[in-house]
């Protein structure tokens, strides 16, 4: 390795470490990285705890004319009954999902207990057909599907952070003079861009990976490894978009315009992934499919491209 290459490599490592430490030292940035996992897991914990402690009852409205046999059958099915004068009003405006007078069943469109009540009433009325409601109790498979959906949505937030790190990092360094000092170093100009990309992507991927692991531990995540790889690739893609959009303009040419462009672009890519199932394009693949390796490879290409663009633009500025 020539001396120049060795110097470039050393500079890349040092600049990457510096960029990573700068991000970690900023308390607000650190809180932002912790925030998504904290909110998701905190909300899940509170919800499950409340359900476990309160064991919410399922209430059904009945009338004074409802036959005792039906009331007994409802109670045997773990349904709590409350007497009302108007079963229709009980469903329409008093918050009950189902009501019955023993001959008719009133239920809201989203009622989860409606079929259960109808089954009891029809059985008592000796009706020719009877519904048999099937319940889908969440198991680890349905939990894993939900876990993957939560991880994907969280991934989108990390992609947005990536855009901010890529875009805002350059703008900030330009405006506080750090970029000028960096450009004075005897190294190729793309090194600064690549260092920013590696540092931001590594930190975002680390925190995102931990979020996926945590969710996998508490509800399961379908294809957790692939989900984490797609997320890491998406973070890399987000940083690359930010770097590419920012150029070296800095705040002197405004931040909100490039930021709005980047966020809209990132959202469009995510929507594309959801619609087409693209598995190789970073950000889109977060909502697509595949093992995630192709997407990681593409993210590295995007990062290199964004660093080259950054180098070319700083060369012109």
């Amino acid at each position: 390795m020539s001396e120049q290459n060795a110097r470039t490599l050393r500079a890349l490592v040092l600049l990457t470490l510096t960029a990573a430490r700068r991000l970690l030292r900023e308390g607000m940035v650190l809180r932002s990285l912790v925030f998504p996992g904290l909110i998701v897991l905190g909300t899940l914990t509170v919800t499950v705890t409340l359900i476990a402690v309160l064991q919410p009852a399922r209430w059904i409205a009945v009338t004074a004319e409802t036959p005792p046999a039906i009331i007994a059958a409802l109670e045997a099915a773990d349904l709590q009954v409350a007497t009302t004068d108007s079963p229709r009003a009980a469903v329409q405006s008093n918050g009950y999902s189902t009501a019955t007078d023993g001959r008719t069943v009133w239920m809201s469109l989203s009622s989860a207990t409606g079929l259960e009540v109808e089954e009891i009433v029809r059985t008592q009325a000796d009706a020719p057909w009877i519904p048999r409601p099937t319940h889908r109790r969440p198991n680890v498979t349905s939990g894993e599907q939900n876990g993957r959906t939560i991880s994907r949505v969280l991934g989108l937030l990390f992609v947005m952070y990536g855009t901010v790190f890529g875009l805002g990092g350059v703008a900030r360094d330009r405006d506080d003079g750090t970029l000028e000092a960096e450009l004075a170093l005897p190294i190729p100009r793309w090194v600064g861009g690549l260092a920013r990309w590696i540092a931001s992507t590594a930190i975002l991927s680390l925190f995102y990976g931990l979020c996926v692991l945590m969710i996998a531990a508490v509800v399961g995540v379908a294809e957790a490894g692939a989900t984490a790889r797609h997320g890491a690739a998406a973070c890399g893609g987000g940083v690359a978009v930010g770097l590419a959009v920012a150029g070296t303009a800095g705040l002197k040419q405004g931040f909100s315009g490039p930021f709005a462009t980047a966020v809209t672009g990132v959202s469009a890519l995510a929507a594309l992934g959801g619609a087409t199932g693209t598995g190789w394009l970073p950000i889109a693949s977060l909502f697509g499919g595949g093992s995630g390796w192709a997407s990681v490879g593409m993210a590295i290409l995007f990062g290199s491209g964004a660093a080259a663009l950054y180098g070319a633009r700083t060369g012109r500025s």
Partner: protein
Amino acid sequence: MPTVRPRKVLAVARRDLRQELKGRQGLVLPLVILALLLPASLIPPPASAINRLRTNKTTVSGDVPDAVAALPTTEVVQHHGALVFERTLDPDKLLVHGRLIPRDIRAALDGPTPVVPVKELDSGYLFPGRSLLFALISASTLTGAVSASVGGERSHRTLVVLLAAALSRAEIVVGKWLAWGLLGAISGLMAAGVAIWVGHVDAGSWLIPLPTVPLATVAVGLWLVRRAGDVVAGTTISLRVLPALLAGTAIVAWFLGKDNALFGAIVPLGGALIASGDTWSAQPMAVWLSAGVNLATAVVCVTQTARDLEEIPARAPARRPTALAAVIGALAAFVWWIPLLLPLLWREAGNPTLTAQLPLAAGVLAGSLGLLLFTIVRAGRAPEPRSVLGHPRLGARTALAALLAGAVLVLADPVVGAWSLGATDTLTGFAAERLHNGLRPVLPGLGVGLLALVADELLFRGWLAKAAGPVRAGMVYVAVKAPLDPIGGAFAAIVLGTVGHRFGFVASIGARLVWWLGVPLIGGLML
């Protein structure tokens, strides 16, 4: 009372807008706002999509009656239909297995005179219409502008110039608020005007709260980023908090307003957002109240931002050792307990299958990586990363100390490890068993076990012991890792803390390793 002179305020607003909207780059933000708002105004109501949903076919299987099979909305399949029909002979009944029976299938089964009439009722709750989008989009697109507004001035070193000039803090903040708040308000109203003009919505009192949503959102955003040192910090705050705040308050407002709109209207941000969706137009009081609450929120936020605006934001003083230990303890407890203990709660919440199927190894892995991240972040933030853990002492004395401490832990394990607080077959018993796997050497898998003990020692005998003292670090260790086994936890903390304090974290890792491997080895020999 701060001075607010309209001409100065306008000057600040003009400067902010000129700075962000100048040149070719400056056209981008208005174009993005236009690109998002125009479709919301111009695209016709998705009637075709609703019709498509209504005509979605239901798959049916089993003993499907002819009347049901003949329906245009059903599709007979061989197996596993959404509805499965089963004819029983004694008694002669038709059972319909499924989760939802559509109206037309129910009518076909019932015939002209149903034995049990079923009335499916709309709950009567009002949902926001498309005009909510105008408020939401016009408020959301200003995230970047709001984030750069204060943080950008700081990193640009222009805030000091503004503060030194003949401008009061209130004038600076009100100017910035008006610049972006009015841009959002005008954009939202223009989008609403276009939608009314093309006939997709009717004009109504929802137009009153609509402009207050971006006005209040910008004010809250400015308050959130008032201490941001640069755009990165500012944007990460507004990006994570503002959408959550808008969505969260809107959900709360809608729930509160289901029975009485006035309750929903008093929720800041969300109340006006729901009202701008033409939800409570029949109740003018609620509409006006939501707009008033939003404007009051904006005034409070602007006032607080003006009060706190400084060139260099006040930094929190360095935490004292006890406070540091308490904060790290709380965070470590969250990181360790959630992946290990939350799966147990599924059983209590009525889903024991899920608890049984969630592997413990995944919890230990996630918790350990979380604890390791504490050390990584600490090292990253320190001026000299290597100093965080202290210099590792290697040599024969360190190895001997690790061996001896490990041996003590192995020999004492049967005695001190038997005093768990959790009773068998109770939630605390199961919790104690799971936590036990984090403290004791019985860990699922070599890699996960090694990771767990290294993460523990780097945190509790490494940097926390150095930053908060070995006693506090030991207490945090017992509270986080062994809250239901305090005797065993305290004994381990004393032995490992002593060896770690005297010989460094490498020795305590060695002692944990001996403990980890020694207990099953001794157990195997005794068997």
